[in-house]
């Protein structure tokens, strides 16, 4: 009787020991894979029908600040496309701040420079597209701060997943 109990206890101890340690293993799942590659920076413009269209610039995804600069410095986006987001010859890095699920972008333009409501969508979509493609959450919204005039948002982009 005692011998049987002893045997069972030893077996349990041996099994417990066998479960631990850093011996060789098989292939295990290790969670989320990295992302962030993209064939160019997404920048949003408006076509003739008034819809939002993405255009790729450069050869890499780059950052939100770079994307915003690309949007604001483009005066002639191409045939059939126009921009309502205003223009600025920005030389400095734009101030980007993230708190919780809101990204705040400090724009070097006045609110009045954004000529239509869809211009705000261009700005928001460009920022959120870079954010989502570099692994950011689709639930994140963007707030646009202007040099003069009230801030816009926080808002989603109408043509991107809104998690």
């Amino acid at each position: 009787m005692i011998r049987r109990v002893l045997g069972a206890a030893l077996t349990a101890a041996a099994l417990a020991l066998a479960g631990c340690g850093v011996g060789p293993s098989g292939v295990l799942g290790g969670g989320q894979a990295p992302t962030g590659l993209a064939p160019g920076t997404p920048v949003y413009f408006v076509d003739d029908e008034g819809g939002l269209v993405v255009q790729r610039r450069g050869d890499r995804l780059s950052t939100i600040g770079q994307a915003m600069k690309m949007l604001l410095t483009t005066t002639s986006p191409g045939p059939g496309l126009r921009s309502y987001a205003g223009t600025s010859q920005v030389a400095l890095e734009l101030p980007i701040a993230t708190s919780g699920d809101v990204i705040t972008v400090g724009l070097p333009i006045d609110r009045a420079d954004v000529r239509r409501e869809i211009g705000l969508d261009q700005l928001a979509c460009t920022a959120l597209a870079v954010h989502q493609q570099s692994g950011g959450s689709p639930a994140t919204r963007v707030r646009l701060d202007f040099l003069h005039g009230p801030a816009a948002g926080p808002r989603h982009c109408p043509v991107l997943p809104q998690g």
Partner: protein
Amino acid sequence: MTPVARVTSVLGGLRPRLILAFVAVAVTGAAAAAWASAASAGTALVEETQSRIAGEIERTVTATAPSMPYPPGQAALDRLRTTIGGSALVTYGALRSANGPAVDLVTPALRSATGRTEQLVLQRVESGGRPWLVIGAPVLVTDLSGAQRPSGVEIYAVRDISRVQQQIDALTANASRTSALALPIAVLLALLAARGVLRPVRELRTTARRLGSGDLGARLRPRGTDELAELAETFNETAASLERSVGELARLEADARRFVADVSHELRTPLTTLTAVAEVLEAEVEQMPRDAREPARLAVAETRKLARLVEDLIEVSRFDAGAATLRPEEVEVRAAVHDCLRARGWLGEVELDAPAELGALLDRRRLDVITANLVGNALRHGAPPVVVRLRGDDERVYLEVIDHGPGLADDVARHVFDRFYKADTARTRSEGSGLGMAITAENVKLHGGTISAGTAEGAGARFAVSLPRWAGEGR
């Protein structure tokens, strides 16, 4: 007993077995608990380390990738590999950027799993006696629709995790020490438990021994209501029943002996008268008519025999009642034996083989009874020559009576000192009372001596008596 057998018998005892079982259970339990907790802590440690390393790589790559051109060139792959650090391998199609010797540890299984899945994968491998963690990660492209697909860029990183092994070793060593700590405590507890269990057993043994050695009043004190207390009660009941039975038997035997003693005493007085009358009758027998002479002689002989039987019965009763006492005095044994033989007229038939003088402290009357009974028995049942051999050393006196008859069979020798024992069953009446040898044995016992019967080499029956030479001393 061989050493092995001694060890086996010592370890087979109740106490060592109890202690061994107790210690085995306690230590095994402690070891199992300590090792199980060490094992689960170790597993948690390994998992935590794995996910920490995987998370680091995922964050590093995700932070670097947006600044990488896609599709990447060799320079981009090199930069990504440098950012990851350590032993790493980055591939894109035919392009390959590798650093560190450990990249050989990436197994084909991990490579094929990395190519198939959209998840980060891990594998632990061992090389050079150290554990390594290999991470395989496909870099994904996230579409604007939110869908993800492999970009074709794959990253492999190899990390040394021997520190985790050391921490687990430390945990296991700690568990072993904890288990070892349980050992003295278990021994202590086992000793206490064994004492509690074994005390009643020891008492039972002591009491049983007292009972066996004749102390019929020995009892246990039952304590508690457990199985051992039940055993003690049963034991007490058995002992009480035994005491009752033995007491009853002793009482019956005492009654029987008292009856014999009383009857003998009652018979003595009329028999004395009867013996006197018989002696007168014997003196007158020649004057009787011829046909009355033979019955008269027979009556006289039987009367004398009856008187001797009663005397012997009274003597035996005295021994039974414990009333027989030893009266030691200085005796010259050779002279005493010689006197005994002469008084009964046996000097012509018996050869006395004795040293010149043999002084001793014995009861003279009882020595006479012993000698007379043994020699009388030899003359009656054995055949001449009868030899009485007397010897002595510092401690004892040896008296041997040897005849040259047929000797004693073993079963006769065993019973020859029983009361009324007759070796020849066909002879229902003997000249003796049937108590002579019993009385002889009682007298020897009273001296603290021994008597034995057997057959002598080249002779007949041999009775050997050994008496302490100074039997009276210390009384």
